[in-house]
Structures are given as structure tokens and as C-alpha cells.
């Protein structure tokens, strides 16, 4: 699956985009967040506080309960601040 990051999430993770294999047994955004939290210090800083994050699946806003699959593009970012 493709993961994309924006704003301070991108900076802390240290990448704007990456491809990972979705580990077996993970089927929701919440599960993915718990998996990503263990990937390193930058990830831990971001994913230990999911309440500060917003999520999009295949470029549509989604909740942490939403289901995900290995072909999805999942984006993590802070609350938007355009306009």
C-alpha cells in the first residue's frame, strides 16, 4: 500500500510518500496507526497521538475505524489550514 504524509507529519516521518506491505491481520486505519507507531522515533512522535491526525483513504476523508486493504493509498496529515 502507499502511505502519504503532509505538513509536520511529513517532516517528522522524514518522507512524503512510501510503499509498505500491509502486515497480515491489520484491516483498519487504527491497526495501521499502531503498526506505524513502532517503526521509529519520528513515527512514534506522530502516531502516538492519533487524535492530532486526519486520515484520507484513496484521497477521500476517512475515520480511524475505516477498513483498508493492500492496494489503498492512505494519507496522514494534520487538520487542514487552507483558504
Amino acid at each position, binding site marked *: 500500500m502507499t502511505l502519504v504524509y*503532509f*505538513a*509536520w507529519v511529513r517532516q517528522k516521518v522524514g518522507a512524503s510518500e512510501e510503499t509498505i506491505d500491509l502486515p497480515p491481520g491489520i484491516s483498519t486505519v487504527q491497526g495501521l496507526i499502531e503498526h506505524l507507531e513502532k517503526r521509529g522515533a519520528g513515527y512514534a512522535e506522530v502516531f502516538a497521538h492519533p487524535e492530532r491526525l486526519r486520515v*484520507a483513504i484513496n*484521497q*477521500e476523508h476517512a475515520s480511524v475505524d475505516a477498513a483498508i486493504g493492500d492496494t489503498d493509498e492512505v494519507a496522514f496529515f494534520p487538520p*487542514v*489550514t*487552507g483558504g
Partner: protein
Amino acid sequence: MNTHIRIQNEDFDVNDELEALSSESSHVGAVASFVGLVRGDDKLTSLTLEHYPGMTEREIKSHVDEASKRWALLGVTIIHRVGMLAPGERIVLVAVASSHRGAAFEACEFLMDYLKTRAPFWKREDRSGESVWVEGRLSDNEAAKRWR
């Protein structure tokens, strides 16, 4: 109804855009517009905007579709700039054409409220030596809620 959505680095000419929108149809009787600018608060040197290409256009389009269901619109132009902007520069234009002013005013405000709370843009404020990501404002969420 014609919809023009552009995400771009370069500036735009407000008059050109409003004239183009005004001439979309002979039924246009009102064009309402909003222009957002970079405020030069607290020694701000620049504002940098990033966005989620693809999702941005899709999200804005869905709000324009929603607006056109609620109000009788004849045309909508939304231009949002990205990249590095200096204080005083234009960031965003939302312009709405309709037969009457009520629909134009309301749809313009509706689209702006949704741009602020749903469209995937992020602002970073740059001051001498430090950069800070702007945090989402609760008041913007409240403003968007009234349209539900």
C-alpha cells in the same frame, strides 16, 4: 453551470476572473467573490502552502457540486495558490455567479467555509529563523457546521 478550479503557484488577476465569470451566461445578475490575503502579522516573512494534489481538486469539486444543489448557480471559480507567498499576496479566490445576490453571497461563504475545513491545504508561517505549521482553528469548524 461552469466550474473552474485551479491550484497554482502564480498570482491571479481578480478583475479578469470576475469578468470571465460575469460573461458565462446572459442570466448572470450577481457575482459575489472572496479574496484571501497573507496577513503580515508578527514579523511574518513568508507563508508556505502545500496541498494534496488530486484530493484537493476532488474535494473542492464535491463542495461546488453540493453548493450547486443548494443554490441556483451559473458559474463558480475557485483559485487557490500554493508554494511560498509574501505578506500582502493573494492566496485564494472564490467567486460565484448567480441570477440574484442572495444565492451568490451565500454560496460564496459556504464554499469558503468548506475550503477552510475540508480542502487538504496546509500553511506554514516562516519568520526569521523559525517555521511553524498553522494549527486548525476551532472557529473555522464552527463556521462550517452551520451549513449542515
